[in-house]
């Protein structure tokens, strides 16, 4: 028999549990409102209102500004060309991964992913070093007698291609992961059926595989496009200033005198949102459910004798080329005497020592660990709760909540950072005083989608009867979450957290814009500032970059191990 005191106690416990549940939902929505919806709204409002009066004059100013119009054109072109190139590069790689089995596949597949977390702007340092007028490439070519005068690889005409190549080498893993996941999702039996009907192989790809894999492709393509279009670090370091991100970056300091910045950022928002919608609705098409439940042969083919060199060449070659800029950074970081020779004459660890000797560099590492760690913690708590609310349908508007949380995937970091500066200047959160709160929030919000996706995947795989069983024993929702749910989705949480942490560590746009005091510079801003310094600054910057990359490699390898093939799903919109 149940005693009434017991009943009262449990009723009280349930109230607490309900309060915690609804409280977290309220806090989540509050955070998303103040740090996602509000900043974007402020930008929009300022683009159209001047001292409370509606105005349309910023846009003619924007469209008549040749520099800005040129920048928009350049950036869109970077986005388009980078997307096309990543597609060409990723399709064969994904097909190989989905269809073939070969020795060393796990290692090579892992290696292919490494460039994803390699900050392209650090790679830019290496590229600049190698392709400079008196850099390794020119010197080698001259030594071999192929050219007489150095080629201006990074001249104004070639900067565009330098940025595109760096973006492609950085972003192709996202496309590759998406395509692999999409192709793996195509049940082999639908192809086998077509084969029995006598449909030729190429027609099968055109009529069956492609329509089924298309939503996955466009989900990846739009991310590549938007990221390439809005990446700040790479064009900044290459010196290609006629691009949207660099222009916005330059406008932030005097945005109060020059409101055209609002119009430009507004235009970027409109552009990314409309590209996003187009890719989802029009190009991506319907997402089809795979209905086959019967025997699915997971057997993968072994390549034929001539296939092996092709596959190794393609996979290994891609990974090698993608890592080349970072190899160049490594050589730069350990170079001692390097003057007019293709490779340094002597090597040293001196620059690594300098990293730990200078406040700027060492603080950068410390700050980034602190900021990325804290933001990951925020993501972990928020992401789990949001995923829980969405999967268990605890509130009626889960669809809207899911959409809201996924916005940061499409919203460029530079837009968000810009929004924070204009919204929170002269408030208690002013980054001029202490940028830590805004940096943590910016890092957290932008990586929240990965955490939510990761936790959602875990929760969906977990039978809800495991939680119900706990409920029948009298456990509150909160108790069940703690004792049953969290331990069971731990792998997904760890993987998501590692990914959030990695991306926060190499965040460029938020760091460059929001960290306004040297004391608070994160790793990336420290690298940028060192890079601009005279003397050995570039070398210390490289060493710092190598340390950052080492941290990231450990993280990404870890999450890849925990999550396996499911990683592709994190980069979907």
């Amino acid at each position, binding site marked *: 028999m*149940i005693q009434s005191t*017991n*009943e009262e106690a*449990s*009723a009280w416990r*349930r109230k607490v549990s309900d309060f915690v549940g609804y409280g977290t939902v309220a806090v989540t929505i509050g955070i998303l409102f103040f740090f996602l919806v509000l900043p974007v709204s402020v930008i929009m409002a300022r683009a159209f209102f001047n001292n409370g009066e509606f105005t349309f004059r910023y846009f003619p100013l924007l469209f008549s500004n040749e520099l800005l119009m040129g920048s928009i054109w350049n950036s869109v072109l970077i986005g388009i060309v980078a997307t096309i190139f990543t597609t060409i590069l990723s399709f064969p790689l994904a097909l190989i991964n989905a269809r073939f089995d070969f020795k060393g596949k796990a290692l090579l597949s892992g290696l292919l992913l490494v460039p994803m977390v390699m900050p392209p702007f650090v790679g830019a340092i290496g590229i600049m070093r190698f392709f400079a007028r008196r850099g390794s490439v020119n010197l080698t070519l001259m030594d071999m007698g192929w050219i007489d005068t150095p080629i201006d690889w990074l001249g104004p005409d070639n900067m565009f291609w330098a940025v595109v190549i760096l973006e492609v080498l950085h972003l192709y893993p996202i496309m590759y992961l998406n395509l692999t996941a999409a192709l793996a999702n195509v049940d082999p039996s639908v192809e086998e059926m077509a084969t029995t009907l006598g449909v030729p192989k190429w027609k099968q790809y055109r009529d069956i595989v492609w329509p089924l894999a298309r939503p996955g492709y466009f989900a990846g393509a739009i991310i590549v496009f938007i990221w390439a279009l809005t990446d700040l670090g790479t064009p900044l370091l290459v010196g290609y200033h006629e691009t949207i991100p660099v222009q916005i970056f330059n406008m932030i300091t005097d945005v109060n005198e020059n409101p055209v910045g609002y119009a430009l950022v507004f235009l970027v928002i409109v552009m990314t949102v409309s590209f996003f919608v187009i890719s989802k609705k029009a190009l991506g098409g319907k997402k089809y459910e795979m209905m086959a439940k019967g025997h699915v042969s997971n057997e993968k083919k072994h390549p034929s004798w001539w296939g092996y060199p092709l596959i190794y060449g393609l996979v290994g070659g891609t990974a090698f080329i993608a890592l080349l800029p970072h190899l160049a950074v490594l050589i730069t970081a350990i170079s001692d005497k390097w003057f007019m020779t293709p490779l340094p004459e002597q090597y040293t660890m001196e620059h690594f020592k300098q990293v730990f000797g200078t406040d700027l560099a060492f603080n950068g590492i410390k700050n980034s660990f602190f900021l990325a760690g804290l933001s990951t913690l925020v993501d972990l708590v928020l992401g789990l709760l949001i995923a829980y609310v969405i999967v268990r349908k605890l509130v009626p508007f889960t669809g809207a909540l899911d959409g809201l949380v996924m916005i940061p995937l499409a919203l460029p970091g530079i837009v968000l950072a810009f929004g924070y500066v204009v919204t929170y200047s002269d408030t208690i959160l002013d980054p001029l005083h202490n940028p830590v709160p805004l940096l943590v929030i910016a890092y957290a919000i932008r990586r929240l989608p990965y955490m939510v996706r990761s936790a959602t995947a875990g929760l969906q795989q977990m*039978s809800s*009867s*495991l939680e*119900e*069983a*706990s*409920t*029948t*024993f*009298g*456990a*509150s929702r909160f*108790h069940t979450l703690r*004792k*049953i749910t969290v*331990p*069971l989705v731990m792998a997904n949480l760890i993987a998501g957290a590692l990914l959030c942490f990695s991306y926060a560590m190499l965040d460029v746009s938020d760091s460059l814009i929001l960290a306004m005091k040297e004391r608070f510079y994160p790793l990336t801003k420290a690298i940028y500032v060192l890079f601009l310094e005279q003397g050995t600054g570039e070398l210390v910057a490289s060493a710092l970059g190598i340390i950052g990359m080492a941290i990231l490699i450990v993280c990404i390898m870890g999450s890849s191990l925990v999550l396996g093939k499911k990683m592709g799903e994190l980069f979907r919109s």
Partner: protein
Amino acid sequence: MEVVFKGIYKRYGQVTAVHNLNLKIEKGALHFLLGPSGCGKTTTLRMLAGLEAVSEGQLFFNGKDVTKQPAVERGIGMVFQNYALWPHMTVYKNIEYGLKLRKLSKEEIKRRIDEVVAITHLGNFVDRLPGQLSGGQQQRVALARALAIRPNVLLLDEPLSNLDAKLRMEMRDNILRIHKQTGITTLYVTHDQREALSMGTNVSVMHAGHLIQTDNPRTLYTTPKTAFIAGFIGETNPVDAVVESVNGSETTVRTSFGLLRSTYQSATFNAGDKVSLSLRPEAIHIDWTKSGTGENYFMTNVEHLTYLGESEQFLLRAAGGHCLKVNFYHAPDHSFHEGSEVGCTIDASDVLVLPPQDMGPST
């Protein structure tokens, strides 16, 4: 604990999953809820557990209204169809979980775990994780976990459906034994009529959200209330017919192969009513000599013959194209063949007159 459902409804938007359910489960009974998948039996069970809210009606435990009480306070032990064992906890921890929530003393927890482990013969497995157990062992852990809290009511949701045939037989005996030992009021949900018939004394049959009949298995089989139950419990030949005349407890019906007299009607019918007959395969007798005459006698042709080992099943075609299954044990000889004509006879008490199928369930 006596459990009473009073006028219970469950609606999901426009869909009514459970329709005006009235049922009393006696204290200490092992009660079966039987029905095809989608009939609302699991929904009923989940409402009892407090996992689903009741849309309308009341639920009583020992006369106390618990309709609004949350799962937490009902003192329910539940065995889920997929067992829902927590894969990250050992068998011991799985059982301990519910006890810890009850803030029992360490000694009491230990004592209770030992008790249910002994009852379910799990002694050697307490330190294993669920993934290291066989299906039958997992099933026993789920049972032990539910029993440990000494529930007011034990709910079993298709507990044997994930086991192979041999293990299923073994577990039936196990569950009966444990029920006898503990005397806990138990509601057992299943879609397997043989499970319910062989184990139960109280069986409630549900169909399309309605509870149609609650009886012991023999009564369900011999005097079903509807054509659905006649077809669901055991095998039968459903035959459409029209009432010709009613004379006290006797009814004469017209079928495509002649008039039949019946002494069992599940409801009151009038001349001209459309009805559905249930003729059990073993109730029809074959007359090889074809010499019979009189009431409840009709001629058929052997359409097909299936050898089943201990018996043979004939498929006979009667006049009007009706096909009847007839079970025959020890056929005298095999001088007949497919196509040959035989006579059939059936007792008036074996002609069950039921409401027509398409009228839907009635209560």
